[in-house]
């Protein structure tokens, strides 16, 4: 029996019957769609209009033939593209790191029995709820003291973003002196992501069959083997949920970037900072601002549209 049939049963309505209260219900639901989509719809319409057009027409009306332009999107993409690249370089490694570390921690805190475990778990979970303001000043001090660029100098020159190509040797893709602050940001986001990823993985690992793990241990498998052979392969669905949730969180962050990237802007700016600067200026008009908002939100919107159910699962599981 499908959920729908069950619910039909629960509320005693006939699936095919047209019932006035059902009509009202659908009218309300559709009206709410209007409420939830109106900022996005009017934003998109405004982004497609010329300056003269958006000042005179209602914000939610589509552009007329004369008033249609893609120029705002052109300006937005030009201004934001390097920041979006930075955001990708930040969000991808930070997301993977925090998910992996969360999975390790959750495994170590679920499938073993020892005294004091609950205290450690509590410290992990409490970390989810920390207001970031409480750590901002120490963070800015820390990253002023730790010179990532010099620390990493013996292994790699992080001011140069390069790839090794056979035959051609090292190819420099881009250079700028602020990659160090992106590394700082990656470490910071990975660290603050651990509590929520640990919680997500732990709620999942608690449901794994203990018998199977115990059996593997009785067979003499080490904790590492059990993790690598049994737990990790079973974690794939939870990795999807965690990666999607963390990617969205890290992509959307403004506060850490404001504090950790020197002077908040420049070539190391991430998408949220660049968008704030694009829209904060008085020069840019509303059509460019709206286009900028869409360009900066595009990756998270894509993730949401493609993996909405997994995102919702992460959201509900994070409580």
């Amino acid at each position, binding site marked *: 029996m499908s*959920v*729908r049939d*069950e*619910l039909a049963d*629960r*509320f005693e309505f006939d699936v095919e019957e047209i019932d006035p209260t059902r009509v009202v*219900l659908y009218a*309300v*639901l559709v009206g*709410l*769609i209007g*409420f939830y*989509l109106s*900022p996005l719809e*009017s934003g998109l319409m405004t982004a497609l209009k010329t300056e003269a057009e958006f000042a005179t027409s*209602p*914000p*939610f009306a589509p552009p007329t033939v004369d008033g249609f332009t893609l120029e705002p999107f052109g300006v937005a993409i030009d201004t934001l593209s390097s920041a979006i690249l930075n955001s990708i370089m930040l969000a991808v490694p930070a997301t993977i790191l925090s998910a992996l570390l969360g999975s390790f*921690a959750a*495994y*170590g*805190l679920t499938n073993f*029995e020892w*005294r*004091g475990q*609950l205290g450690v778990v*509590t*410290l*992990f*979970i409490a970390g989810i*709820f*920390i*207001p970031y*303001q*409480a*750590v*901002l*000043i*120490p*963070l800015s*001090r820390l990253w002023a003291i730790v010179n990532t660029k010099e620390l990493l100098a013996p292994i790699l020159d992080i001011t140069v973003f390069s790839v090794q190509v056979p035959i051609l040797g090292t190819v420099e893709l881009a250079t700028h002196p602020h990659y160090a602050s992106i590394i700082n940001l990656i470490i910071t986001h990975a*660290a603050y992501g651990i*509590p929520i990823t640990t919680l997500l993985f732990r709620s999942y690992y608690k449901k794994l069959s203990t018998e199977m793990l115990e059996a593997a241990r009785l067979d003499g498998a080490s*904790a*590492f083997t059990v993790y690598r052979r049994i737990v990790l392969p079973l974690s794939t669905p939870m990795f999807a949920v965690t990666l999607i949730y963390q990617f969205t969180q890290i992509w*959307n962050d403004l*506060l850490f970037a*404001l*504090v950790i990237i020197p002077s908040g802007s420049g070539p190391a700016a991430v998408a*949220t900072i660049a*968008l704030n600067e694009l*829209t904060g200026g008085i020069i840019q008009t509303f059509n460019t601002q*709206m286009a900028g908002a869409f360009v*900066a*939100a595009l990756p*998270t919107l894509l993730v949401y549209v493609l993996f909405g*159910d997994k995102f*919702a699962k992460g*959201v*509900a599981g994070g409580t």
Partner: protein
Amino acid sequence: MSLHILKRLLGRDRSDDGRAVRTDGGTASSKGFDLGATLSSLRDSDAVRSAPFWLPPFLLMGFFVYGAIGWNVIISFTDFAGLTLPTYDPAAFDLEMYRRALSDQQFWLATRNTFVLLASFTALSLAGGLGLAILVDRGIRFENWFRTIYLLPFSLSFVVTAVFWRWMYNFDSGVINVVLRGLGLDFLASKWLSGGVDLGVLGGLPLVPEVLQFKLFAVIFALLWQFSGYAMVVYLAGLRAIPNDQYEAARVDGASTIRMYWRVILPQLRASTVSAAVVLMVFALKAFDFLYVMFGNNPGPTADILSTMMYRQAFAANEWAYGSAIAVVLFLVALAVVAPYLYGEYRRGEL
């Protein structure tokens, strides 16, 4: 359960001191503590075997979360300000910055606004989310589509939503005023981000302004738009967990739909309400990004909250120690929200 016996056996196998019964079979809830037995089984105890997994993430997280909080508390005892480096001299530690906050009118306004935002945003989002969940839970067609659209704003960043809502609230051609004027309600069209309404006599009361500005309510409304979908998801999970026969029992008793929800369903959603409320409050305390994009680092006395004030004092005015003290207050507010919740989870064995 056989599994439990198995664990007990394993615990006994590992204790090689010949004691017949080992009470600390290794369960987290056991009470007995025996140093000898603990030491002898330490090498292959679960605590040690599991440490390679949880300890490195714990150290990284602990350093950044708890280390930084402690560091912040220490800075709040100093006089660190300006462009000089902080000096940590325990002899010079004092509570000067907290005294300064207590006598700072701005601080009290920010505290008041923080609580107004916290309470009204959380209550409205919960109510809105519950309403949405009940509507969506009525066996509708295309349920996935409705759910996806209602949750969509939650996936956007504060920066993006603030940019959209600044345009929504625009006086001349923003959606809200255009719609109001279109409905013939011109008198309601307002400067939502800078205007207000005169409170008259009420303005004489302490902490009540003479003109009630719309700013904070405009923020709350926009955040409601962004977060009610989240509350809906949590409530939907709660509603789906209630067995069908409870609905039937209520219906057999002849309860109306409203009575059924009020008497039978709502009390069972307590856990959903608590967990959603805690998360919403934490988001409200993080609303900094939204206010910062909308109003810059100074939203003015009617919309300033502790997190914007902290950022302004520290990173704009370079009053680092004062900023730390405000951050400590903010942390304590968050703790007051979260600690009872975590304790409740612990009591129910949910941790």
